[in-house]
């Protein structure tokens, strides 16, 4: 998708960055399956480094911006439900992202045991599944709604503030 509003375009680019990290995590899980991967492998390390930093930081900033700046505006326009539904998904995603980040940092330092890998596998699997569905919903429903919601002046104001916060 491409969007005429800069705010929507920035959020779309965020989604693309998140998908790259999540997709790499998905590939790692698909390759390793039930056997814990070697954390000295450069590809495994790179994936875990991205997961330890990018997911947690990216989603917390992205979610906060959406909840504080966009959902509130949608609610003022009488469209309460998009924000309610996506807030619910944020509530599910944020602790998963934080848990995966913490486990990835621990694994980078100490490697995986069979037990820690099993926990990482389950938590990452849920994060990946929820994140892909969440991004699809935002791409299909939230970002197009911003095209109608934001006037040019508000769009510049919001997008500048969001870009500066990154």
């Amino acid at each position, binding site marked *: *998708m*491409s969007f005429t509003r800069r705010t929507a375009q920035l959020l779309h680019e965020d*989604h*693309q960055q998140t*998908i*790259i990290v999540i*997709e790499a995590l*998905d*590939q790692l899980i*698909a390759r390793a399956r039930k056997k814990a991967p070697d954390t000295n492998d450069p590809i495994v390390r790179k994936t875990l480094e991205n997961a330890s930093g990018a997911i947690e930081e990216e989603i917390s900033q992205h979610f906060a911006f959406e909840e504080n700046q966009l959902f509130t505006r*949608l609610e003022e*326009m*009488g*469209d*309460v*439900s*998009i924000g*309610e*539904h*996506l807030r*619910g*998904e944020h*509530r*599910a995603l944020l602790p998963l992202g934080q848990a995966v980040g913490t486990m990835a940092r621990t694994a980078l330092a100490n490697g995986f045991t069979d037990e820690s890998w099993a926990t990482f596998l389950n938590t990452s699997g*849920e994060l990946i*599944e*929820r994140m*892909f*569905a969440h*991004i*699809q*919903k935002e*791409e*299909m*429903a939230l970002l*197009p*709604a911003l*095209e*109608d919601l934001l006037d040019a002046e508000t769009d510049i104001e919001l997008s500048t503030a969001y870009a500066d916060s990154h």
Partner: protein
Amino acid sequence: MSMAGRFLGGAQDRLLPAAIPFRFFVTAAVFHLLAWMVLLLAADEVAGFRGGTGPVLAAIHLLTLGTLAMTAIGASLQLFPVVTRRALTRNWPGHFSYALMLPGVALLSWGMALHQTTAMQLGAGLTCCGLLVFVALTANNLRRASSIPVVAAHGWLALATLFVAALLGVLMIWGIELNILSNRSGLAITHLTLASYGFMGSLVLGLSLVLIPMFVLSRSLPPNPGWAQLGLTALALLVFSISFVSEFPGLIWLALIAGFGGTGFYLWQMAKILRSSMRKRLGLPFVLIRASWGFLILTLLLVTAYLAGLAIPNAVSLIGFVLLAGWLLTFLCGVLHRIMPFLASMHAAGKSGLPPLLSDLTAEGPLMLHAVCHFSAVTLCGIGIVADQSLLIRIGSALGVVGAAGFATFAIIVALKVRQGPRTS
């Protein structure tokens, strides 16, 4: 309506109550099962079928109206408001369309199977009224479209071709009684072409431009190839219809070239979307969707070979079978496999108040069973038609029944999970 159920909704109400799309989808799954069952019973007549009432015609309409059109209506009623960013003005016409279509298709197919003209006429009347309600509802939405005009234009083409195809269908059924139609085979082929390539094909081509990029999370496409695809498809349908109704066969080659052109633009865009996909593991739905594109190419190649005079045994039956069961049915099953759990997640309640996981809203086992049996059924029936072997068609149809039962199990499981969530009015 639940909190989740109001997603896409609120003031704009772009998410329909779950009952509307899901009753169309579940009914489509049941008619799908019935279509294979009737084909199994009529296996001896399939290879040599050249038109006329009987169980083969009934099976065709259980598939086209019962499965393909039901799916298309349910999907269109939900997807066009999202694509156009304009809510449907009312929900009751969706329920009304269903209430007319369900008995209409059942009665029409019953009448066709048993050569009962009155049942056919009544069934066709109810079905056409249901389709008309759908056409009016969707036209009203497309008229107010504010985004993605190329997809909305495909919707207009689909509605126009559906209207003409339904009109021709009614004419033929009344013509059986009155015996006034002189060019029945031309009308029948035009009816089939407008209903399949026209109505269903336009929706598949148009909604693919939105759905496939969303499924695979790919980069956006420029709109011009979409317009070229639409223009060539419309030209192909128009010239094809004129050539058959006017009995001027030379024009059909022009229609075929335009059809190849429209298909070429479509598949080129789909390939580009898949190349820029940010998801690597696309799963079983994309095995079905990719295979359906192969069947689309095969259909056009078979039509070309047939028109060029190549001796393909039972070519007409084979082309119809590959078109309906190969391309359209395979594609729609792949799409339903993806969108039913996705749509259900917006209505169903999850554990601990959190939104449910998509994997909790699907049924992988029945879907795998369906995919394996579906491909086996299409292959065996196709070979059986060419080889004129009823036994192969019977075995293929039996596998089709098993696969369709698997798909119906999936559809019912998803629908039940939606019902278990908070009521969605």
